[in-house]
């Protein structure tokens, strides 16, 4: 479905939607507190709660860059 959208004439709309999903993922990841509010496994003496959220900063940046590449490649621009 995703690729169909991309190939269609309305490619911009498809890119917008995929970019929006990429932008939303970190919100969901951080919203699911139950998945990371625990001590183990620890890393470098740090409880999971801390290092998990820190690593998600890097993942967020990667997701955002993908989203931005999509947004910047839209035809016509804004």
């Amino acid at each position: 479905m995703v690729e169909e959208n991309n190939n269609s004439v309305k490619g911009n709309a498809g890119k917008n939607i995929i970019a929006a999903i990429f932008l939303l993922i970190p919100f969901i990841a951080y919203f699911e507190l139950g998945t990371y509010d625990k001590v183990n496994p620890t890393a470098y003496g740090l409880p999971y709660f801390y290092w998990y959220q820190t690593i998600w900063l890097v993942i967020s940046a990667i997701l955002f860059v993908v989203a931005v590449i999509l947004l910047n490649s839209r035809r016509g621009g804004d």
Partner: protein
Amino acid sequence: MNANQTVEISVFLVLFAIFAFLGFYASRWRKGNLKDLGDWALAGRRLGPFLAWFLIGADLYTAYTFVAVPSGMFAAGPLFFFAVPYVAVTFAIAIITMPKLWVESRKHGFVTAADFVRHRFGPILAVLIALTGIVAELPYIALQIVGMTAVLTVMLQGVASDVVLLTEVSLVISFIVLALFTFTSGLRGATLTAVFKDVLIFITVISVIVIVPAHVGGFAKAFAAKPTFSTLSPLAGSAYWTLWLGSALALFLYPHAINGSLSASSEKKLRLSTALLPIYGVGLALLALFGVLVYAVAPAMAYLAKAPAATRGILVVPALIQYSMPPWFAGLAFLGIFIGGLVPASIMAMSQANLLVRNVLKEFVPGMKAETETKLAKVFSAVFKFVALGFVFIVPLTYAIQLQLLGGILILQTIAPVFMGLFVKRMNKYAMIAGWALGISTGVYLVEYVNHFQKLVTSFYKSPYGLLYIGLLSVAVNVAVACVGTLIAFAVSPRKKSVES
């Protein structure tokens, strides 16, 4: 003054001299017409992705962040790690809104968000938005100064008989230097010094996080001293997400964040540098952990135990550095944090001045010449800095932190015209004015209510669904009123729309 302090303070002073030089030199850098407001306040809108990244980053990770977040971690533990999800998701919001605002601003020559609001929704709403921005920004600047004071307090201990006086004199001198170079170089000065500042901050954060745990027996020892800090208490779950979400929505409504974004050289470059900003947050996460790490550093804890309880928190990071790193390094780190307060204070005061002159004064003095406007903005950017400085000298430090709570709630109320207005041209301005007024009253009343009309210590409302951040609650009221009002207005007279562009 002992030999260690001489080294520490000398390093600090030499680096401050380099900082001041960069600030003044910046006026010649990519020279433009500094009599033009867009040029002075937005560095000619010519910042590429790299510099925009540094500038917006410098804007957002401030002395307040370096001081308030670790101080919160030190006192309350994991709840204050909300700063991490907050800085991750705030940039998703910025990627959606800021490039759009950039395009509008380039097209119509806007310098502030209120310029945009005026263009689309008329002068009344624009004046309200501008005033909200000016008021909300003031405690933010004051808190930069609180952070700078913390550094000086630790660094200058025992140097003179009256450390408080020495600290205040040092602050006044640095603000004069700052005001002078902001006057001549504008945002260019802030940008060049931001790069310098961030290099120092990154060196500091990475060195401390590698060296100190190895020295004191790892984070495990710090968490052993504070076992309750290992996870969030189940009761705090709703507090956690409402706080990070509310803060994330607020950040890019602050005039200084918008000012930074508008200085990018293109819409696409702005998007890219914004996407990379969560990386910057790793530094913030590590700094937050300083608030726990300090529990493993015995001499720092001994120093903090002697400090008055009210100001203990803000001294956490400087004390940790002072008591675990060599003096020359402490001098470098302290200057990093110190100018980490000065640079954002400069950008904040500039954006306040732009709002006051362009969006408030000009409404009452139509036909103001462009040159007069720039001149006035330069003068007011200095005035705002010294107002904030005076404020910090007069009222207790903790009072500034309390006002910052209200500042965040206030700035959130500009969301409907600034963010939603970007995408929905048909938003009704009267509905948004009503939303703004109700959002502010709900927010301020609830904050007063939960604090029993006493000192402001909390910004959470205890609901049947758990603790909720009042900022998010009040902005929900605001947005609901603005949307429902717009729908009603549209239903009553669908043809009469307030579309101007």
